[in-house]
């Protein structure tokens, strides 16, 4: 097994009837590494995440996640592979408002047997795993677990989303602008908690944002425009 978690080579993608959006000769993310990927909106960032998640397939080239060639899998196998090995945190409104905080955190365990069994192995039960993760992320209050997710503040909601991404120890956590709705101090605090939890779980973190000021906190920082040969000069 190689030390690379993600490796892209010679990747090309274009939406049907549109110009080439992504042309990435090579890119790797190491296991346990935290990477800041800078990309303004419209730079193909969302598409890249879609490719990594196996929701879209590239026109050419290869995407390997945990040494598995994604395009070799069927669509439903890709879906399963994604949830087994990847946790997601999005910008805002990440949670299902009609479920409790606990149920939101436990969602991936209902769709991935692997993550459910890892959560049980490590914490004894899925409920315990959710409670522990939330406590580590600063949501210690026991009553909070059973509250509806939309009763929480945005900062709290993002921490719940982080707990959900981390439950069952996926190898990769992908965060897409998770801090853009938070104020500056909260951003850094949130990131520190996220780093700590990723380290503990041994997960790699791929963090996508346009906010360059956060880059210094990561192991490595890259710009999508540098990576992507198809990027138009104005975006560089």
């Amino acid at each position, binding site marked *: 097994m190689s030390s690379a978690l993600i490796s892209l080579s010679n990747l090309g993608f274009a939406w049907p009837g549109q110009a080439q959006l992504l042309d990435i000769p090579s890119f790797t993310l190491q296991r346990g590494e935290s990477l800041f990927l800078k990309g303004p909106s419209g730079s193909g960032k*969302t598409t890249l*995440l*879609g490719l990594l*998640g196996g*929701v*879209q397939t590239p026109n050419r080239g290869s995407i390997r996640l945990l040494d598995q060639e994604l395009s070799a899998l069927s669509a*439903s196998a890709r*879906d*399963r592979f*994604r*949830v087994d090995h990847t946790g*997601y945190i*999005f*910008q*805002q*409104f*990440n*949670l*299902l*408002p*009609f*479920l409790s905080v606990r149920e939101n955190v436990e*969602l*991936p365990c*209902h*769709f*991935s047997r692997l993550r459910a069994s890892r959560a049980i192995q490590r914490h004894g039960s899925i409920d315990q795993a959710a409670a522990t993760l939330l406590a580590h992320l600063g949501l210690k209050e026991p009553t909070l677990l059973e509250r509806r997710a939309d009763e929480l503040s945005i900062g709290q909601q993002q921490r719940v989303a982080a707990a*959900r991404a981390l439950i069952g120890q996926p190898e990769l956590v992908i965060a897409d602008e998770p801090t853009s709705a938070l104020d500056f101090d909260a951003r850094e605090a949130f990131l520190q908690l996220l780093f700590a939890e990723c380290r503990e779980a041994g997960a790699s973190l791929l963090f996508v944002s346009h906010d360059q000021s956060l880059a210094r906190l990561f192991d490595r920082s890259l710009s999508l425009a540098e990576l992507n040969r198809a990027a138009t000069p104005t975006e560089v």
Partner: protein
Amino acid sequence: MYLLRLALASLGNRRFTALLTVFAIALSVCLLLAVERVRTEARASFANTISGTDLIVGARSGSVNLLLYSVFRIGNATNNIRWDSFERFADHRQVKWAIPISLGDSHRGYRVMGTSPAYFEHFRYARSQPLQIGQGRAFADDPFEVVLGAEVAKALDYRLGEELVLAHGVATISLVKHDDKPFSVVGILERTGTPVDRTLHISLAGMEALHVDWQNGMPARGAGVVSAEQARSLDLQPKQITAFLLGLNSKIATFSLQRELNEFRGEPLLAILPGVALQELWSLMGTAEKALFVVSLFVVLTGLIGMLTAILTSLNERRREMAILRSVGARPWHIASLLILEAFALALAGVLLGLLLLYLGIVGAQGHVQANYGLYLPLDLPTAYEWALLGAILSAALLMGCVPAWRAYRQSLADGLSIRL
């Protein structure tokens, strides 16, 4: 199971629309079942009205008309028939029993029927059930005795021994009353669920006594008046009756006797087979009944389309929900199943609430419907046919759920994990 939990939680989040949808389905289901019950019950009670009678004979008119006045106490005879015609056929060698019927009077809206004791002995309804006298006895020799149908006794609260006055004619409000000759209640029949319940039975002699002093359709005055006491001593043999029922020794003779009656030279008679005439009458009403059923089916369809609209409208605002589910590992078919489950849950809740409404409605309206329309609505569990109808509604809902499911499936494939704000 977990998908069901998610579907219900999501529905709970939209509970106002969901409740409205459920209520619309419930009302339509309730209507369909109510129509179905009334329909079945009407048909059954209709077919149960008369049994064991081989021929009904009256003055020549239409067969449906004859059936209506002789059995259902609806409408009037156009003509009477002579007593000697009745006697002639009552003594016919093929005839086992004959029941004379004389109509024309009423009591507070209920019809009065003059007949002979043979009526209590030979008349059958439903599956060859004889009439049962619940209290008292049949009328005997005294002409001024009356036997009440169950509903007459109950609605007007009559007991044995009470006296009542009959009215001339069959209008609910009658101006001419036979108040000089009161009748006393000697018997009350058990409930039959047929027009018998709404009839007052007197002897032919009683019927004759009421009209013995009448001339040209008007009561006598002054010296012409015959008192009840005087009437008792008169010869009260009727000269005319309205119709009669015949039971034959052998069913095989039915058609030949029918022809004999219809070709009778003494006076124009009409003999009908009750079963055939009932069929004819029901085919008249059957159209309305079928129309009602079809209308209520369409109401159910409308309810389901309402549900479809509600789910489809919600799809767009739930793109985020779908994308979140996709990001935590739900596959497109999970998303599709969620929507089908949602449709099914709404329809199931609608059906259950509809059943509840139906039973509440039956409990509430049972007495009223029975008293006014003679229809007994049973509080039974749904019949196999009703279960089948409910099953068909649920299947239709499942089928309709496929439409939003398919759209959500496509949508979630296109949207992937990204939530476009």
